[in-house]
């Protein structure tokens, strides 16, 4: 662990309700980390601890070699001295100030003259293309505009760490997709370490270099978006990545599942012993009759649920193996699938991927 550059943090926070957060984060300057987790996993607590809204109970937070919080050493820098720029989930723009004064707030609060603070704000207004909005008040902004103003306000303080708390969650779906691209390019322009807190896998996978999965106050997996997608370590991650995840053991290509009677055949014969088994939902085929030829994995089952998801239709099967299957709406139509339809499922042995457990 090299000190001096970027964020190095070990956060331990004990909450009265018995919830404990205990995580390690290390983010280099110029890289974006995502902390991805479900509600109640400790995301807000992490934001509060890094921003200096709460003190950690144990551990240490170091930013570019400065100690922001160290429970053992009794060091605690308050928010205003941390140089941690935060884009809050609800943006929290000041309603009594117009856009330019919102952005100038940070520079002015740190002792700059009004004119100087305004000049800095103007620089960020240009950088984020907010010129037309400079004299509007926050209640006259759309969600996307408010997000850019919040980003400009955080960046105008020249922070050493940029913290984005669910930066896209307040937007509708269409805006979210469009603004994700814009946000990506703005993040590129910030030279320090960036940490994005999110519950949306799309944010994490598309914007981050490194993804940390947070579950129940612990980081359950860390890796590049590709690592995480291909080799999910927990059912939560697999579900996020849209993958089916099973556990079992492999003996020369024959898989014995932990919780289900069905045996599966994999083309992978060399990863022996305990394995994590992943199957992509689009690798599973459905048939109205027993499939011809000889797919090595085929079994009869019935449809537990069927749900249209835009361009695909998601089918779930619950016996003998619980699996999610993606089919086209056309296939659903032609096979006349509804809940309870008796059907055959098949998977090629080459589509069953194994990783050592």
């Amino acid at each position, binding site marked *: 662990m090299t000190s001096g550059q970027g964020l190095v943090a070990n956060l331990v926070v004990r909450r009265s309700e018995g919830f404990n957060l205990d995580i390690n984060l290390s983010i280099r300057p110029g890289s974006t980390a995502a902390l991805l987790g479900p509600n109640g996993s400790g995301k807000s607590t992490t934001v509060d601890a890094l921003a200096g809204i709460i003190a950690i109970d144990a551990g240490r937070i170091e930013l570019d070699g400065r100690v922001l919080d160290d429970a053992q050493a009794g060091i605690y820098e308050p928010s205003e001295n941390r140089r941690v720029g935060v884009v809050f989930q609800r943006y*929290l723009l*000041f309603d009594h100030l117009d856009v330019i004064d919102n952005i100038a707030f*940070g520079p002015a609060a740190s002792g700059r003259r009004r004119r100087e603070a305004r000049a800095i704000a103007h620089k960020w207004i240009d950088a984020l293309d907010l010129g037309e909005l400079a004299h509007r008040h926050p209640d006259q902004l759309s969600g996307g505009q408010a997000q850019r103003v919040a980003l400009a*306000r955080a960046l105008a303080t020249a922070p050493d760490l940029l913290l984005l708390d669910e930066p896209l969650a307040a937007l509708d779906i269409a805006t979210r997709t469009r603004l994700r691209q814009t946000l990506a390019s703005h993040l590129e322009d910030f030279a320090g370490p960036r940490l994005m807190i999110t519950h949306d896998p799309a944010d994490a996978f598309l914007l981050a270099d490194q993804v940390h999965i947070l579950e129940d106050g612990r980081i359950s997996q860390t890796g590049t978006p590709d690592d995480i997608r291909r080799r999910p370590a927990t059912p939560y991650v697999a579900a996020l990545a849209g993958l089916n995840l099973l556990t079992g053991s492999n003996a020369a290509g024959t898989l014995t599942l932990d919780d289900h009677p069905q045996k599966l055949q994999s083309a992978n014969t060399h990863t022996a012993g305990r394995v994590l088994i992943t199957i992509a939902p689009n690798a599973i085929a459905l048939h109205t009759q027993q499939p011809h030829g000889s797919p090595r994995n085929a079994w009869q089952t019935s449809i537990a649920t069927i749900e249209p998801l835009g361009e695909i239709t998601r089918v779930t099967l619950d016996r003998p193996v619980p699996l999610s299957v993606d089919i086209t709406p056309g296939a659903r139509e032609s096979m006349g699938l509804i809940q309870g339809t008796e059907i055959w499922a098949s998977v090629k042995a080459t589509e069953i991927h194994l990783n050592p457990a």
Partner: protein
Amino acid sequence: MNESTGPRRVRESAPWPLVVLGIIGVALFVVPLLGLATRTPWGDLTELITSDVVADALRLSLVTSLLATAISLVLGVPLAWLLARVEFPGRNVVRAVVTLPMVLPPVVGGAALLFAFGRRGLVGEPLNEATGLLLPFSIWGAVLANTFVAMPFLVITVEGALSGLDPHFERAAATLGASRLTVFRRVTLPMIAPSLVAGAVLTWARALGEFGATVTFAGNLQGRTQTLPLAVFVALESNRDAAVAISLVLVAVSLTVLIGLRDRWWART
């Protein structure tokens, strides 16, 4: 065909006992005002209001009530902040003491002020010996009496607003590098501005109408401590027409303030 465009409104009939009692309740307030209006010498009104006694009292009332409001703002806002934000032992006792003048008979307040700040008072005696300053029977006595009675209105209004404020905005300001004092000045105060205005106006209105504490503590000297309510009281004995005229001025000022405030204060959740 139904010509109205909005949703059809169904009139809910009010139970008659409530209507009757409600009307009697309103009459309780309206009849005295009518009594005042019928006794008003409308022809001589301008002359009465501009007489020396009334002009002195009006000027004194404005000066003392505005000074009391200013002092209440300077001392009351920090006090409200402490009550709303800092947990200290005895906070509830302090809150009770601060709001006590709202329920205490003002005469009792005036007597208490006399024992504290009078010529032989706890603080008044050493103060008089050291500086020669004597609060009773001076304009500052009237200001002190006004502040004592009126400041609680500011404190409870502002404390309520501070307690209801979303703390996330202040935290956001801190992450932008603002010290706690800067946060208070540039975020907290602007966000509670409507309540601050409402509290200040109520405080001023209460100070303007103050009688009991002023007459007990500061006395009744024309041009020095005789405010409008005191002038009314004196005039009732000697010059009824003048008393009515001054009363009318007070009613007009108070009604204007209350109607102006109705959205800000009465309609609050």
